[in-house]
């Protein structure tokens, strides 16, 4: 009888015992349902990029916690030189770096393979970043030489630990083929260990990591798509770090919890309203100007929350190399907007269609914009479609006004080229994301791209932004920061301001404090 009693009590205790997070296992909660493509040269979503960033290195890296190329430091390359023209870059590869799971030493040969793979127009999502690369060669086992057709602004950033710069191990990729995205092999502080579909990816510490064995032994990257469940799990201690609901109310609510750190992290994803300058009524610059004058950025930031967002400063996100922080944006002036509309022949207002995604954060913004435009007589006819449909339709020129929210590598050239260079116009063979059909600053953008004098380069970029703003190819609205929270028992090991991989870096120095 007594044994039965003990058995019952133990069973009850077992059932009731909460799951304690161990001090060397980090459990991260991400807001997506499942892993996508775990290949660093293809992954384009926040969840995948963050996870991969803990497994890979670049030739160089941006200091953990920072996003600006000012803070570039050695990673797999311990030093580098370039010729004065900026067209020949020579990297000295660190010795003794081991690829995960015994795939051998990482050498210049792997670097060549990795960069060629990332440049492959047919298979890489980031081949555009390497369009200026002429030759990649291994001069010897630890020396890599990259020759460019022309100098590239911020070239080092393209071989940093982001996107195409992530270094893969040749032997592993060749052996695994398509399975590489099931078990990615890198050189970073953490190695892929296990994947349970729709549940988690488990990473284990790479004890041979060249910067030292990580203090965290295990990372469990959990897929928890429901925002409320993620919050509750965080409160209950089942998750140590979570990707928050990208919302000011979430930030305020979570900051009130005891023992929690909340951060609105860089980069800010900028919301820009692209106006198709080739269709009526937007082909009349006065209509476009009216739209620009009707937008009240200050009110939008107040609406979205000043702790998690900020006003846009230019058609390029703030803080990028080359951003004109004092760009001549159209101020909020609804009276002028109405006058311009009347001048253009629409004294009683005008209706313009916009196809828009149902993604919550973006939807609330376009509704706020709609309200502001209504005040000056512009009726924004929003057609809501599901996200994948949105992406397909805007690339077919079906929406005169396109609201796009994005961050890019923090050099002005990238954003300007992808969104405002006429070569990137949607529907063309070289299309990227130029929805406005903008073509007013091509000369300046292309000249700045290859300009080696930083002063001249900045001036060209400034001119480009000024022209684009003046022509109202797009109306910059605001920037949304990345919201994360974690337990204050977790010491990241560095000061976090932002990360280009959109997730806090977990390094060999990250650890739990008592």
């Amino acid at each position: 009888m007594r044994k039965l009693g003990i058995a019952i009590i133990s069973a009850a205790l077992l059932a009731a015992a909460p799951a304690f997070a161990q001090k060397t296992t980090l459990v991260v909660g991400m807001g997506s349902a499942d892993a996508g493509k775990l290949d660093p040269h293809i992954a384009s979503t926040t969840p995948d990029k963050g996870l991969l960033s803990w497994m890979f290195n670049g030739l160089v890296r941006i200091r953990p916690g920072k996003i600006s190329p000012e803070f570039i430091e050695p990673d797999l390359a311990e030093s580098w030189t370039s010729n004065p023209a900026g067209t020949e870059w020579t990297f000295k590869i660190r010795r003794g770096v081991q690829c995960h799971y015994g795939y051998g030493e990482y050498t210049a040969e792997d670097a060549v393979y990795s960069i060629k793979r990332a440049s492959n127009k047919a298979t890489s999502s980031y081949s555009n970043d390497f369009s200026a690369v002429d030759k990649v060669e291994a001069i010897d086992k630890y020396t890599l030489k990259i020759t460019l057709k022309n100098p590239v602004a911020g070239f080092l950033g393209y071989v940093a630990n982001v996107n195409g710069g992530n270094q893969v191990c040749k032997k592993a990729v060749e052996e695994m083929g398509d399975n590489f995205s099931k078990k990615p092999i890198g050189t970073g502080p953490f190695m892929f260990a296990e994947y349970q579909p729709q549940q988690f990816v488990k990473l284990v510490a790479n004890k041979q990591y060249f910067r030292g064995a990580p203090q965290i032994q295990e990372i469990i990257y959990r897929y928890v798509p429901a925002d409320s469940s993620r919050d509750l799990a965080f409160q209950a201690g089942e998750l140590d770090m979570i990707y928050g609901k990208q919302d000011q109310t979430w930030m305020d609510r979570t900051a009130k919890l005891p023992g929690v750190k909340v951060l609105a992290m860089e980069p800010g994803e900028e919301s820009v309203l692209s106006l198709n300058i080739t269709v009526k009524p937007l082909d009349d610059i006065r209509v476009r100007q009216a739209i620009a004058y009707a937008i009240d950025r200050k009110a939008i930031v107040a609406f979205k929350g000043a702790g998690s967002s900020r006003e846009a400063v230019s058609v390029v996100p703030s803080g990028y190399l080359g951003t004109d922080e004092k760009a001549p944006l159209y101020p909020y002036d609804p009276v002028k907007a109405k006058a311009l509309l009347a001048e253009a022949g629409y004294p009683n207002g005008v209706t313009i269609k916009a196809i828009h995604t149902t993604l919550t954060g973006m939807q609330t913004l376009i509704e706020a914009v709609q309200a502001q435009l209504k005040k000056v007589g512009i009726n924004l006819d929003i057609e809501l479609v599901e996200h994948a449909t949105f992406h397909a339709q805007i690339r077919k020129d079906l929406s005169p006004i396109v609201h796009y929210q994005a961050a890019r590598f923090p050099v002005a050239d990238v954003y300007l080229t992808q969104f405002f260079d006429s070569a990137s116009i949607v529907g063309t063979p070289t299309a990227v994301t130029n929805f406005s059909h903008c073509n007013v600053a091509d000369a300046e953008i292309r000249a700045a791209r290859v300009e080696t004098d930083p002063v001249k380069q900045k001036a060209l970029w400034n001119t480009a932004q000024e022209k684009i703003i003046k022509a109202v190819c797009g109306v910059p609205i605001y920037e949304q920061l990345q919201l994360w929270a974690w337990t204050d028992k977790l010491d990241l090991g560095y000061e976090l301001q932002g990360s280009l991989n959109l997730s806090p870096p977990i390094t060999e120095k990250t650890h739990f404090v008592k």
Partner: protein
Amino acid sequence: MTAFVVRRLAFACVTLFAVLTLVFVLVRIVPGDPAQLILGDQASREAIESLRHRLGLDLPIGEQYAVFLSGALRGDWGVSMVTGQPVIREVLRVLPWTIELTVVSLILGILLGVPAGVYAAIHRNRLVDYAVRISSLLGLSFPPFVAAIVLLLAFAIALPWFPVISAQSGSFAAWYRSITLPAVSLGLISAAYITRVTRSAMLEVLSEDYVRTARAKGVPWNAVIWRHALRNALIPIITVVGLYLGILIGNSVLTEIVFSRPGLGKLLIGALNQRDYPMLQGMMVIYTLVVVLVNLLTDLTYGFVDPRVKLK
């Protein structure tokens, strides 16, 4: 009975074929480019076109259909465009989770709903009856994800008895802790449906002559209810349970999302969002098979329960 089963399965193949063709065409008509979605918005047109070619998406739809059909007849249902894994394998990996949740929820629903319905029928128009009817109405009106969140707040946060992320495995204790809240959340709602159906079926049966005769004969009341009346009321109850089983397999997605459990619903939503055509086709096949099997099972159960029903 074997002839019955064989004929039903033969019909099932026709249904399967029709559903498959319909799904195949529909997903390709809906706007959205899987290649662009996989590679992201910074990818060059060349990369996207190349991926489209490798996935066979640049072929005319008739040819794509032919390729798919010839593969399917050989047992190859294709690989997921996103993960590159065989579709059937991906589905079978999460199917046990969904079946487990559905079966446990339904069992809970039956264990709660049938007695409640019987009780309400016996004590018709009394307090018990009203209480049961009102609570079942509440159960029907409650959206599953609201029930889920309320249960989490109550039994995972306020009283830390269960985990929020209900997807543990390894030991019986872990399984039990993971399945309880999700099954209760779905079970309560299915109990609501089952209660109502049981109650009305019982009311009909209790007014039959043979019930009065049995009572007059002196058969104990309990035996009358549970051995005679309920047995006859089972047909509509089994119908509802069978229908609900088919529905639950597909509609547990909201519960799966709130409790962070793997499941077919989530897989389907994911495949839809990414326009993963082979995955969508594969899943439709599985769903159709499941519905057909459940219907078959329901019909066979009729035959078992009611000797008057001849299955031919």
